[in-house]
């Protein structure tokens, strides 16, 4: 447990040192999407009886919690390939579960911070939704899935450049196609089938439903918890592999 806290506290120390830079950079993309899609293209558009801005904010919460949780992979890679601090962790008497848990918690914390930024931007834009327990559970599960994925991939890649490729091929398409900017049920059936394979589609659905105070559907929650658990366990194996 102490090992896990040490890993987590190290990430938090680094985050604290660049807090303003980090928060500002977290705000840029959502702000641009809000201006371009919300205020620009979305004016006068309504989806399911809601304004496009109201539709967009939960989508951005899902997207941003995904990207920021996944961004822990970048920090791990810098520690591993650039500063070589990963070796310091590997030489310490801590189990792989402590390392993985510390990094996943750090990724989830970053995700929560980015969600706070979006909700603040939403509030300033006059969008007030319901942010109850189901909303936060969905956010946490989404960030758990992508922080665990981040640890796995950060351990498998051979260089920092490979990590950027993975982000371009998996995270960026998911950010745009996972129900962030448009309702997936308006897509053709074949496209819906494909998009249902993306965890973000289910996260966006759960986050949006809870923000709109619709009855909670357990399926996306269970699915995200299942995927997150599998990836979390896989991350232990990946840490061992990275050792070699």
């Amino acid at each position, binding site marked *: 447990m*102490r*090992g896990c*806290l*040490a*890993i987590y*506290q*190290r990430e938090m*120390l*680094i985050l604290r*040192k*660049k807090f303003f830079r980090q928060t500002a950079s977290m705000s840029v993309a959502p702000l641009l999407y809000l201006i371009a899609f919300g205020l620009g293209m979305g004016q006068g558009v309504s989806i399911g009886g809601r304004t496009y801005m109201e539709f967009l904010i939960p989508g951005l919460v899902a997207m941003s919690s995904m990207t920021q949780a996944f961004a822990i992979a970048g920090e791990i890679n810098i*520690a591993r390939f650039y*500063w*070589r*601090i990963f*070796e*310091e*962790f*590997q*030489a*310490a*008497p*801590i*189990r792989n579960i402590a390392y993985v848990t510390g990094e996943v918690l750090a990724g989830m914390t970053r995700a929560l911070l980015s969600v706070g930024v979006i909700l603040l931007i939403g509030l300033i834009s006059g969008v007030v939704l319901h942010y109850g327990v189901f909303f936060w559970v969905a956010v946490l599960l989404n960030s758990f899935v992508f922080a665990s994925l981040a640890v796995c991939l950060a351990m498998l890649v051979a260089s920092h450049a490979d990590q950027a490729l993975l982000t371009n091929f998996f995270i960026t398409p998911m950010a745009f196609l996972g129900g962030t900017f448009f309702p997936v049920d308006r897509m053709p059936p074949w496209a819906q089938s494909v998009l249902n394979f993306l965890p973000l589609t289910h996260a966006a659905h759960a986050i949006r439903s809870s923000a709109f105070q619709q009855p909670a559907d357990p399926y996306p929650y269970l699915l995200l918890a299942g995927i997150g658990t599998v990836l979390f366990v896989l991350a232990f194996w990946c840490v061992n592999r990275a*050792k*070699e």
Partner: protein
Amino acid sequence: MIQIDKLTKKYKSAHALRGVDLHVEEGELFAYLGPNGSGKTTTIRILTGLAYPTSGDAWLHGFHVISETLEAKRQCGLVPQTLNLDHELTVVENLNIHGKLFHMKRRERAARIDELLDYVEINDRRNSPVKQLSGGLKRRVMVARALMHSPRILFLDEPTVGLDPTIRRRIWSLVKKIQQKGCTVFLTTHYIEEAEFLADRVAFLNEGTIVALDTPRALMARLGSWALDKIVDGDMETAYFKDREEANRHIETQKGSFSLRRVNLEDVFISVTGKKVQP
């Protein structure tokens, strides 16, 4: 105490270690020398839990490095070849995180940090971000960090590489001081004079095999006491002699320029590995 039995490490295309057997006594300062790629760092990586061996066993103070890895890791501190400090964090923060990784309590950490920063003489830079420190200071922080949890064995992998001679000598004094406190020191270095000055015993590793192991004095005595260097067709050739008289008798029969000097550990290195020392 370090015990290594028939340790091998095979990578896809090459053998890094070929059945290394070694015993290092408690409190000994042991130098592990060899040309680039001879397996020095691989040995340290296996002993410190950073890599798995292909076969063979190793124990640190009786704890097996694989089956009792957490206990084995508690026995040792590591100063790796490449700088691996958190550059965004301060000196104290780096040491503090290390202490937490080794399950030290808050008060224990604070006291040990004060003690170590005095010990390596960088207390005045305790709150400086590591990125603002010179190479020599960073090395000292790494030594302090490795000693943070009071290890019984300290692994130093090329601890003075890239440092100027003055700083290098300060690190040497520090290493001697650490040994005098009862810590076993396992050192790899390319600076042969470093091993000659510091080590109680020296092992030469070549292509994954230990080819010579003894005290520096005994290893040098195997060659003789005096060495005569002579340039022949652009290559330096060295002849070894038991004593000065024998060397002088040989010189009388020689033409051209040559130099007579004492045998050193570098001569042993070249004779057992067949390679010159590459800094």
